[in-house]
């Protein structure tokens, strides 16, 4: 069911234990924050409280969290239409996320971007992007900039496997490789591009593509945050050390529809498949059981985290629901930066 096209690198269990327990707990909380935040987003849609649609990341949490956990705050990310997870994992706060999804003034983008465009300089979030592969240039350019400015920042460029259809990805991978740019292309293969199984629209093996451009490429189990974190960390430090770009294929799955309104999915995937991923490959439960087993946490701690996260969601939602819409004159602001400058 899960296709993994490259050599599978599995760190030893013992290696995972070299990481401080608190950090695994942090990742657990981060994944749970994404899960609960988005459950609430779905709820907002169902209850017709949210304008437009949203693309839920639920099921894929280990990717955003595993990767972002290995980044510094001043490292950059770019994200996609399915971006809430990346933004939260990179440090966004829920209240301003909700506010943005509702088009409210205190939203990250002053309500002008919405679900698909969350951006935040404070956490190095260059922006989610509603064009498939639309941010691969921006991410590569930020890496170029980091190199030229002589910072040691690294950039992570998240995209779905559907982005492999866009030519611009190959254009920028070529340049990233030529110029040894500190950018990691993180491809989340959740098996579907909208309503089409990815194999129907993708020829060859995914990992061969970055490799053809001289880019180091690996695949991981995208449901195992431990593996994602370890491999991402290695690739990120490699890039930070000036050894060039990498491509990380994360095999994963989205539990919900392509967007919140995609309810009848029977024509493109089976209920059994969905159930299998949820019961066998849930990233939060996988980490949870492992932590219990390794005595990094006990049930009580995990329950406390869940309570805290639920409270965070509730407070953030209340904030957003109560927040005002932007002033109407905001519509014509920010078309141009710094209009007074010259």
């Amino acid at each position, binding site marked *: 069911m899960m296709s993994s096209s490259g050599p599978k690198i599995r760190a030893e269990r013992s290696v995972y234990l070299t990481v401080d327990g608190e950090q695994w707990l942090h990742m657990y909380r981060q994944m749970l924050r994404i899960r609960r935040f988005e459950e609430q987003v779905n709820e907002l849609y169902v209850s017709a409280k949210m304008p437009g649609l949203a693309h839920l990341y639920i099921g894929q949490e280990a990717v955003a969290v595993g990767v972002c956990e290995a980044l510094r705050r001043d490292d950059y990310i770019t994200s996609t239409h399915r971006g809430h997870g990346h933004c939260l994992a990179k440090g966004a706060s829920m209240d301003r996320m909700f506010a943005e999804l509702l088009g409210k003034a205190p939203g990250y983008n002053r309500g*002008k971007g*919405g679900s*698909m*465009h969350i951006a935040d300089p404070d956490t190095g979030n260059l922006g989610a992007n509603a064009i*498939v592969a639309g941010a691969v240039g921006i991410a590569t350019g930020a890496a170029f900039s980091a190199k030229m400015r002589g910072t040691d920042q690294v950039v992570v460029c998240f995209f779905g496997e559907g982005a492999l259809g866009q030519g611009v990805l190959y254009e920028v991978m070529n340049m990233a490789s030529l110029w040894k740019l500190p950018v990691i292309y993180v491809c989340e293969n959740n098996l579907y591009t909208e309503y089409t199984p990815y194999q129907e*629209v993708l020829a060859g093996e995914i990992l061969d593509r970055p490799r053809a451009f001289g880019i180091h490429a690996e695949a991981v189990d995208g449901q195992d945050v431990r593996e994602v974190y370890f491999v991402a960390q290695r690739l990120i430090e490699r890039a930070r050390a000036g050894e060039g770009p990498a491509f990380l294929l994360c095999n994963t799955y989205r539990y919900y529809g392509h967007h919140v309104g995609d309810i009848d999915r029977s024509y493109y995937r089976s209920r059994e498949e969905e159930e299998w991923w949820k019961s066998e490959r849930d990233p939060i439960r996988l980490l949870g059981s492992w932590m219990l087993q390794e005595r990094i946490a006990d049930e009580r701690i995990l329950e406390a985290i869940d309570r805290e996260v639920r409270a965070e969601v509730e407070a953030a939602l209340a904030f957003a629901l109560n927040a005002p*819409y932007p002033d109407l004159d905001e519509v014509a602001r920010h078309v141009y930066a710094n209009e007074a400058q010259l």
Partner: protein
Amino acid sequence: MSTPMKHSYESSTTDRVISMAQAIREALAEEMRRDPWVFIMGEDVAEAGTPFKVLKGLVEEFGPQRVIDTPISEAGFTGIAVGAAMTGMRPVVDIMFGDFLTLAMDQIVNQAAKVHYMSGGKWKVPMVIRATMGATLRKAAQHSQSLHAWFAHIPGLKVVIPSTPYDAKGLLKTAIRDDNPVLFFEHKAMYSMRGYVPAEEYTIPFGVADIKREGRDLTIVAIGRMVHVAIEAAQRLAELGIEAEVVDPRTLVPLDRKTLIESARKTGRVIILDEGHQSYGATAELASVITEGAFYYLDAPVIRLGAMDVPVPFSPPLEDLTVPTPERVVEAAKTLCGRV
């Protein structure tokens, strides 16, 4: 906007009322039955029938060989369509959101539009590119644009924007039979709009504007969904004793200059509505054509109401400001008619 509208072409024997989506689907199905070389390609067009479900059922009738799911490769499959069109096929390309046309501009503008001319008339490119347009759906800046003016600027392309199910069906059939690349814009908010469409076959010629409402005091030229904004404004104006004529060009290229100019000469006052950005957009061309042809008949300069010159914001109260509304049209009309 949801009341079915009667129109001048309504010579049908039936009073069949269907949605715009169904009208488009019927046009495609009829043409695919008529001509085995017509086929559809695009993202999620087959089983999914596009996210708007416009094409629902077509793959079942025509099979995956003629309703083809592509990778997310707008430039690539548009280019493939150009080559297929040159060699005997009649592709109908589906661009899910008109904003994604930006990815296929070389294929459309440097290739499709120019092949016939550059080859001295030897090769031709009979293809249709269907793309959505329009704001107020809370889809933000990258999924809400109405970029038709760009294509109307490029010789070699034809540009169609239907405002009713009747027009959509008749114009799409004409587009598919045309031997040139045709851009066919469908407003996302209009798919569910219903209107009369006869059961019997018909086509609508390009370059023939349609007077959607007659009037003597004022001409409102409106494109696509704006026709309905114009009609609503006209109804309100009628209550004030102002009779507005609503003219729908239907095709921007070729453009029915004559009908536009005649209406302007008759009424002496013109407002132009469009959902593309106002500056350097379609309203400027229509205003210029009308001013050139009716200058000495005009009481006042043509008023242009395009979309605001801002990227489309997500926040609903802001987004709603960006597009012309009946209220704003009524205001403008009152000014024009000296009623303020």
